[in-house]
Every structure is written in structure tokens, then in C-alpha cells.
């Protein structure tokens, strides 16, 4: 199969972005964007569609199996993971467009600086104050919440999120939800207040995030759960909490 990868390049944060179109051909009937990027970068004879040589495309990857969130980028206009995005043959040559996540400051090529996500969690004091209680009831919620990859895809599509604003976005939902699920009510006041202010109040409920989460996290459920505990100060029906 033959495709054209159209990639938005940028030498560094200070440089102007520009497009490059790269032909890629493989015997595979189906392949991931990640495998195409790896193959192109390893090809010492690489040329763009105009026959010009070019430097390797800078992008981030780690696990290559949808478990780490490293390779998040905008693929054909939608945020997703390069290792998850499969391209399969349609018979005719097609173009796949790759851009860095735009919600975050650019670094180079397909790399965006997602540090703000992590800084935000620090600022909002998302950690255990101690006294977490494990229970069978909270297990599933805590598990789902713990699966968040911190990839940033949900923030990319969120109409309410902008880096540095007061809404932390649903990248903070997972970490908050795990702790809220496991903290006894008497110990969760501070965390609840932080959640209410920086997650609940800013969320416009468009739930655009729900459709892009590469981990397939049930964002609705986590929101309902944490809203119940932190905002409405009652136990979450989602947990079927006893007594």
C-alpha cells in the first residue's frame, strides 16, 4: 500500500511551521501511523514527494501499544495515538495528515510540550492527604480512573480548556476521581473543593472528550462519581456504596 504522510513540521519552538509531504510504501495491508513514522525515520534514503532529502521527523513514542500516551498527535484532524491509528488499504493512494497537539506549546515537529498538564495537578494538590481506604466497592472506579494516560487528547478537543486557564480539564479527572473514590468523607474536603472549582465548574458538559479518549475511559461515569462525592457531598451511586 502507498500513502502520503502530510506532516506539519517545525524546527523548534521559535520557528515557523511548514508542511512536508512524504511518500510511504509498505507491503502491509494495515499499519499504524507509528510504524510509518518509525520506518520513515530509519530510512537513510528518505525523500519527500519532491525528491528532497529531509531530517528525521521528531515525535515522541514509548510503548507502541496504547498504554503510555506518549505518541498523542492530531491525525487527520482528530487527536489520537499514533500507535493506535491504523491505516488500511483502500486501493488508491491516500493522504494522512499529522500535526502536533495544538492545545500545548510546540516543541518541534510533532512534539508539543504537555508539561502544563502535570504542573496543573501539582498546583491543584492532587495527591493523597493520607488515610485512603481500599474497598471492593471503590475498586472499579479507582481502577478506571487510574488508567488515564495523561496524553492530552481530551484537552485538545475540549471547548472549555485553554492552557493556563482556571479549568484543569478532564486530564485532571482521573487523578481526582481515584483519590475521591478512596478517601473517607471526613478527609476529602480540601480535595473536593479543589475538584469542584477546577474541574466541575469549568466543564461545559460538551463531553467531546468522551469520544477521543484512547484508553476508552468511561468519562461520564467518572464525572458522575466525582461530582456526587465532591460537589453534592453524597456517596456515589456508581459505586453502589453500602451502609
Amino acid at each position: 500500500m502507498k500513502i502520503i504522510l502530510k506532516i506539519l513540521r517545525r524546527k523548534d519552538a521559535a520557528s515557523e511551521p511548514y508542511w512536508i509531504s512524504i511518500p510511504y510504501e509498505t507491503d502491509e495491508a494495515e499499519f499504524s501511523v507509528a510504524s510509518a513514522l518509525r520506518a520513515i525515520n530509519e530510512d537513510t534514503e528518505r525523500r519527500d514527494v519532491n525528491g528532497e532529502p529531509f531530517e528525521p521527523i521528531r515525535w515522541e513514542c514509548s510503548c507502541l501499544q496504547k498504554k503510555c500516551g506518549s505518541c498523542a498527535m492530531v491525525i487527520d484532524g482528530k487527536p489520537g495515538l499514533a500507535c493506535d491509528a491504523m491505516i488500511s488499504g483502500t486501493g488508491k493512494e491516500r493522504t494522512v495528515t499529522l500535526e502536533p497537539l495544538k492545545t500545548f506549546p510546540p516543541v518541534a515537529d510533532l512534539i508539543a510540550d504537555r508539561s502544563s498538564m502535570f504542573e496543573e495537578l501539582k498546583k491543584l494538590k492532587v495527591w493523597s492527604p493520607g488515610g485512603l481506604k481500599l474497598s471492593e466497592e471503590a475498586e472499579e472506579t479507582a481502577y478506571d480512573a487510574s488508567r488515564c494516560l495523561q496524553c492530552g487528547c481530551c484537552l485538545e478537543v475540549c471547548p472549555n480548556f485553554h492552557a493556563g486557564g482556571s479549568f484543569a480539564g478532564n486530564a485532571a479527572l482521573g487523578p481526582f476521581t481515584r483519590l475521591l473514590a478512596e478517601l473517607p468523607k471526613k478527609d476529602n474536603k480540601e480535595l473536593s473543593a479543589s475538584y469542584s472549582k477546577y474541574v466541575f465548574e469549568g466543564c461545559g458538559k460538551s463531553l467531546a472528550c468522551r469520544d477521543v479518549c484512547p484508553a476508552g475511559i468511561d468519562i461520564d461515569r467518572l464525572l458522575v462519581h466525582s461530582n456526587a462525592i465532591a460537589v453534592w457531598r453524597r456517596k456515589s451511586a456508581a459505586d453502589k456504596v453500602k451502609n
Partner: protein
Amino acid sequence: MLTGMPGFGAEYMGDHGAVNIIGAGFAGLSAACLLAREGFSCRLFSVQPSERAQSVLAEGGLNAALDTMGEDDRPEEHYNDTLKGGVFLADPNAVKRLSEEAVRVAAWLQELGVPFHMKNGRVVLRNFGGQKKKRTLYSRSSTGKIMMTALIDEVRKYEASGLVERFPHHECVRVLIAGGSCFGVRIKDLYTGAVCDYPGKTILCCGGLTGIFPGMTTGSALNTGDLAACLFSEGVVFSNLEMIQYHPTTLGIPGKRLLVSEAARGEGGRLFVMRDGEPWYFMEEKYPELGNLMPRDVVSREMYFTARREDCGDTVYLDLTMLSDAAWEEKLKDLREELIHYFSIDPMTGPVPVQPGIHYFMGGIDVDIDHRTSINGLYAAGECCSQYHGANRLGGNSMLGALVGGHAAALNIINTEKAGDMPEADHLTGSGLYPVSPEDDPALAEASPVLVNRLSDILLEGLGIVRDGQSISAALEKVRAAAGENPDYNLREKNRLILAEAMLKSAGSRRESRGAHYRSDYPETDENFRRTSAACYEDGEVRIAFRSIPERRES
């Protein structure tokens, strides 16, 4: 917390510089937590944030003899299984510490809120390879990811208080060593290109040699192996480099091998090959007691030989169709999704073709029981070091080894700092950071993927599941030939060539079969080789020596 570890109090706030931690997976976070809790500051360097570390890929679980399943399990049995699984090549005193600390580590993780699977108010333990009792805590099929989330949250607290400073897009390009002591690290900011030296004692938590075999392992692309190669060429002692674990059940996906967790066999999955038109469950026939759950080295080797028999098909399958819906939903959901996503195979309805793939490096930087390397002030923990696992690592012991190792290294730093008896190199007293011009250090130039892939191919010829003197020597010749044909290799390329030679020489020197190291020309285990192979690069030459294993001390 590891309250059983002696000799420190929570109030200590001495006058000391920050500790450098290279790598932010389990070992790095574990070290950071203990240092920070004791009032010591540290810098946590990683090429990407913790969420991207190979640690999140760990699936199976964490071994600890909690004995919640009414099987009368004890740490001593965990100790015995670990030593036996590693075919008695591990340091028994270190393994004793591992098995005892396991119970405390499990309690600590529960304090941090890791949602391990529970029933009737108690943690559920499951079966894992090479162990007769249920001993493995788990969180469905993403135990590593779920545990990492809790540890990341915990470290965040210390980041906010200033005790842990994160450098999350920073590569350690070399460790600064002079006169047998480490006096700091050289770090490149991958986003800006800036290079700085940071003084201080250093704990290496930089992962295994995954990147020496790009695309051929189940690990993360972040673990390039460059730092290990650099350290080796600078004279740091490595050990048991021939011990490479081939996990029995993997499948190839672009850029790597996808792991089918041992948990799938723990739940009842059965390996078979077709023989005379019938499935032959060869593991169950040959090993009636542990069957499909024999240690990984045994299963991989049996698969290798069985698939080469004339009366058998050449594909080994893993049959998981008998697993209950509940097992898929509660324990192996991610695995099923991956198999459907990448292979269009639904393991609930049909068998999965599997092959052994490189999964873990038991060997690595040589460390003592306190995780000190051969260099003063330099420590190593996690998969980058050689500790606990001997000739073969048991499932459920890798995250444990990383957590216990990180703690042990941090604890040794805390204790020596308090005692004031850490000999300091002159350079260690500085407290600032020193910018370095990128042109000044050849360690900054990356290795060419062409050479990296070529070396990987050569090494695989000599370091397969089954090896012999001839294939090892032939591979060694090819490495030397590659080294000789281009005087202009850059530093990282030269380092890789040297490390490759050390790996092959280690395998060539061990003229016996033990654990993951199977020599068809020496198929027996030889008591004379119940020794650690230590590799060192001195005066331009790779030297291999065998060192005796300590006796177990009574306590």
C-alpha cells in the same frame, strides 16, 4: 513504608546536596519517595514523564507472601521460589531482603491507594509462573499502570513541597566519573537542546537493555541502552549479561513484541501444538505439577524445541477459550482488546499463535545488596541492574525488585549521608549546575539506526533461546568485523559495539546451561558455574571473570 529498614528517623534534615535519579519508573519513584520522606531532596530525570515509562506496561502483578488465600504462604517460600527460579544464581541475602520487603511494599502500596483486586475485605492473590502458592497481587491486567498512577500521585506531593524536582524531558548522556567516584551527571534537555552538569550522588533507574534489540522486545522504545553502554565503556562492572529472558507468549506488532501476560496462563490458558491433527498440550504432559506455569525459561525452551519437532506443526498456540467471562472482564480485558485491535483475533473464540520474545534482562549493572555499583556514589536499581533474579526472573518479581531496589539505594544514601562517611570527590561539593556546550561532548551524538539494527541482528544470532559456542563465536566475529570496518563511529556507536562484545563474551564464557542461558553444547547445569559472570572493560579490552555467590547469612 519500609519500616523494617533500620537506621533512619523522619526528622533528619542534614546539609547535603540533591541526589540525582535517572529514570522515573518504579525504581526511580520508589527512591524519590523514600529520599523525600526522609527530608532529602532529589532531581528526577527522565526522557519522558513517568506515565510513559516502561513500568506502565507491567501487567501481571506483584509477588508478596501475604497469605490471604489460606495456603500458609510465607516470605521464606517466596525466597525459595525466587532463588530456585533463578537457578541459584542470585545473591541469597538480597533475595531474602526482597521476599521480606515484599510484604511491606504491598502494605505501602495499599496505603497509597493502589486498587488491588479484593474480596471479602482482603487482597486477592493469584498464581504466577514458578510458584506453587497464590502470591501475586494484581489490578486486572494493568497492574503496572495502576501502581504507577498511585506512585506518581505520591511523588507529586513531594514535587509541590520542593523536595523532588522533576526534569521530565531530559536525557542523561553520561555519568561523571573520576577516580572511581561518581560526582554527577550530564543532562540534555531534549526540548531545548541545553546541556548541563548536575553534581551529586546518583541512582540509575534507567531500565533494561531493550534498545539493544529494537523492535524485538516487549519493552519501551525509551530504554535505548545508550547510558548502559556508556557506563560499561567507562569501566563500570556489569554482571550476568548473558541472562536474557524470553517470555514464552508474545506476538509481533509494528516496532515491538506484544506481551500476552502470564496471567492468561495463570487463569487456565493452555499451550499446544498440532500433532497428528490433534492439539498436543505438551507442557501439561511434560510437567504435570506446574504445567503451563513452569518458569518462563523452561516454557520458552520447550516451545522452541516442540515447534521444531518433525511430528509437530511449527506454530505454538495459546488456547484461552476456556477462560470464564468473568476472567476476561475482571482480569484480562486489556489483553483481549489488544488482540482484537492488532490481530483481529478474539481469544474468547479461537487460539492465539504465540512465540517467545525478549522480555527482561536479568543481567545489567553489577550491584551489591545495597544497590551500590563498582563506582563510589553511584547506585543502580530496577531492570538496569543485576540483582534478585539470577538466571531467570519469576513473573511478579520485576516491579517488586524495582521498588525494593529503589528503596535500598535511597536508604543507603540516607544512612551514609547521616553517618558522614561517604567519601566525597572534590567535584561533589559544588551545588550549582554547569552548562556544557553540546560540541564539547561526543556522547551527545546519537547512534545510527543502521548500526543499531545490524548489531541487534548479530546479537540475536548468538543470544537466542538456544545457543552454542559456535553461534556465539560467529556473532562475536561479526561484532569485531563491524567494529573494525569504520574508524569514524561516533561514541555511542563505539559504546554499543563494546557492550555487544561483553554480552557475547559473557554467554561464551558460561559453558553450562542455567535458567535463561541454554547452551546446546553444554546442556547440563554445572555447579562450578554457579557463579556470577562479571564483565568489565579495561585497557581497551572486555574481560569476563566469574565471582562466587555469597552464602546466606543467618539473621
